[in-house]
């Protein structure tokens, strides 16, 4: 299964204070790829690099099999992009914006566009500047979907929108994916939304990729263990210790571990400790723990 987006050893620096070093990222085609990360972690920069808006210092980016930014003209024809801030001109009306966009994409699907205009209840004559935040988001999603692209790059599409609008957008997105089998690269802060929709997850912090794994593997693999009698130093465990704190009251310790398999409880007997309980973590807790351990330990994968 080839990857829709491949980034190898990407190196980019903007000014003095921010830098992306040695970034490797693979988005399998047909997947819905969630891109998690705190503000300022380089998500938007990475997206702009993928779209050829920025020029990397070194490294290779391949989108839909073509090198970027060299082939940006051909690639962008098959990519729908929804930016974080609305990038459309506020003095044009919705109808004009749709017609403008239609002229630039050979695979433009006029029927879908009209259908989405009805569904999103957008008024063709109103100026883009006067639309509400939700309507603007809907219009940008409409433009991205109506292009019938093979890849949708969404930079916090539903951020700060009310649940109703979010629901409309998500269902329209998912309908599109199931029809066209397109790949979605979505960066968001709404972890629950990603948890529900994505089958791949990547976590990025301060310009470095912490982890990139299928959603299930990440969720199953991250557990909180209640451990008693564990020695201070543990020798190369099969799993990855993210954090290790003494539980408040009751002498045990709370561990958070990654890459966990159920069979690994036997390792603790070998070390003379006992695992009282294995608690599942949802994506949000897992994400928070990952970030904390990464920032403390600074270890990568």
């Amino acid at each position, binding site marked *: 299964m080839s990857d829709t987006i491949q980034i190898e050893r990407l190196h980019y620096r903007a000014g003095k204070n921010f830098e992306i070093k040695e970034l490797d990222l693979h988005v399998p085609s047909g997947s819905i790829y969630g891109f998690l990360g705190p503000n300022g972690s380089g998500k938007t920069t990475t997206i702009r690099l993928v*779209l*050829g808006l920025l020029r990397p210092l070194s490294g290779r980016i391949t989108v839909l099999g073509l090198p970027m930014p060299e082939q940006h*003209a051909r690639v962008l*024809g098959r990519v729908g992009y929804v930016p974080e801030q609305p*990038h459309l001109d506020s*003095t044009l009306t919705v109808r*004009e914006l749709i017609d*403008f966009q239609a*002229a*630039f994409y050979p695979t433009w699907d006029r029927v879908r566009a009209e259908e989405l205009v009805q569904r999103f209840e957008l008024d063709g004559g109103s100026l883009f500047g006067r639309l509400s935040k939700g309507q603007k988001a809907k219009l940008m999603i409409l433009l991205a979907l109506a292009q019938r692209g093979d890849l949708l790059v969404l930079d916090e599409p539903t951020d700060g929108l009310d649940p109703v609008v979010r629901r409309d957008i998500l269902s329209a997105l998912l309908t599109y994916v199931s029809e066209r089998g397109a790949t979605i690269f979505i960066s968001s802060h709404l972890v629950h939304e990603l948890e529900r929709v994505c089958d791949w997850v990547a976590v990025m912090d301060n310009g470095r990729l912490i982890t990139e794994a299928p959603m299930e593997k990440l969720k199953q693999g991250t557990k909180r263990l209640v451990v008693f009698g564990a020695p201070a130093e543990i020798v190369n465990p099969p799993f990855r210790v993210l954090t290790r704190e003494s539980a408040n009251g009751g002498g045990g310790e709370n561990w958070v571990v990654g890459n966990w398999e159920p069979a690994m409880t036997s390792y603790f007997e070998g070390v003379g400790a006992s695992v009282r309980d294995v608690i599942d973590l949802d994506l949000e807790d897992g994400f928070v723990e990952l970030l904390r351990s990464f920032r403390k330990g600074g270890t990568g994968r």
Partner: protein
Amino acid sequence: MIARFRAVLNSQWKWSRLIVVLGTVAAFAIPLVSLQGAARADRGALQAQELLRAVQSWGTLYPLLATALGLLMAIAAWAPDHRGRHIHALTLPLERWRYVLLRFGAGGVLLAAPIAAVLIGSSLAVLTATLPPGLQGYPIALAVRFAFAVFVAYAVFFAVSAGTARTAGIILGVIAAVILVQVVAGMANIDLNLFGAAQTVLLQGPGPLAVFTGRWMLVDV
């Protein structure tokens, strides 16, 4: 390619509607007004001299109108892009130079309206006015000169506003440097006449602004 050009043309038309309409009205009115007042046959032999003077004074409006049209159209072409920090344009599936060419062409097409208005206005003016014997109208020559002036002005301001802030900065920097050197030379009373040199380079000869200077005479001997 045609659909893309039409799309860019529509958006450009929406942004520069006012400029084009006002420009066209002005371009149509100036020649008519310049001849109307002065072509009174009852002034007898004085008519020729008065007519030439009037045409001469009204004539200075054409280069001004041409420069204004070029400047405003260039701004109308690039202001929205600058506001959106060019992201929308850069995500469109075409090379940058092709997009810029579309913008340039769209502006050019829209500027055809005022140019046609000058041609029609001046032809009409020459036909309706009773010219004194010996004087002749040159509507086409005037319209052609106006067209070149508009396009040169448009191209200059288009290049400046299309460029990033850096290129605009460079151009302004050069101008500022020339002025500074001239002032310093003036103080140190070295007889260095940069303005004169710049003027000859730009205005006379095949300089870019040569088409602006010269005789904007709708009616001449």
